[in-house]
């Protein structure tokens, strides 16, 4: 066994995680990008994306997960998502209104339609996904800190 397997859960859990985690991530991305056409959207997709990283953290331990997405990177993506969302909202002022849907809406039920909604979904997904993962990582690290002191 390699050193990677010293921490985390049993081999069965790790194998299944390795097989499924990519699918979970892809499903999250699908929910985000298809959010303006079918039920879903930035928040739901972002949560699923965050869960795929949480899944890795639960199965393999915190080091492996934090190597994939470090806390500072998560924090950066979170702030970036928020700023991106705000910029989209402010760009609406080109048409005179805050949050105005200033891109052409296209044909309903096409992938490229609904103007700024897909962009907003992506921004929300960055914010929620990174934010949720950062919360989880912060709570986990806090727990380890407490245990080390004891």
């Amino acid at each position: 066994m390699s050193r990677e397997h010293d921490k985390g859960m049993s081999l069965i859990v790790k194998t299944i995680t390795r097989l499924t985690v990519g699918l979970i991530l892809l499903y999250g991305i699908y929910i985000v990008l298809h959010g303006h056409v079918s039920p879903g959207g930035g928040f739901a997709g972002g949560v699923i994306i965050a869960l795929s990283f949480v899944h890795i953290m639960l199965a393999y331990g915190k080091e492996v997960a934090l190597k994939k997405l470090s806390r500072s990177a998560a924090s950066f993506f979170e702030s970036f998502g928020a700023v991106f969302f705000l910029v989209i909202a402010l760009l609406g002022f080109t048409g005179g209104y805050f949050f105005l849907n200033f891109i052409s809406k296209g044909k309903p039920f096409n992938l490229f339609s609904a103007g700024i909604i897909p962009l907003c979904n992506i921004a929300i997904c960055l914010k929620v996904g990174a934010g949720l993962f950062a919360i989880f990582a912060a709570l986990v690290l806090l727990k380890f800190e407490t245990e080390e002191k004891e």
Partner: protein
Amino acid sequence: MSIYLLCLILFSCGIYCILRKRNIIKIIIGVIIAEYAAHLFLVLVAYRMRGRSPIFSAEAEIKNMVDPLPHALVLTAIVIGLATTALLIGIAMRIYEKYGTFDITRIRELKG
């Protein structure tokens, strides 16, 4: 009617849990229960008799839908609830680190 009363009972359970329990984690669970009861009430407000889910698609006709607005409100409220709960749990873990207990009767240094 009875379903609204059940919703009220759930809310009361949450409030009871907040007021009566001593363990910080149980208080947080009480907050969550009360929160969900409020969300449930909003969803109940939206319901129309024999209404269908308010999802619009290419072939669907807009007829007899339940009110979609409270669903959007509930989603927003859930997101706020997530933030509050995460913060409460973070504070609770810090409290455990400092006081070494979850019992609120032993965490009472502020008085007066």
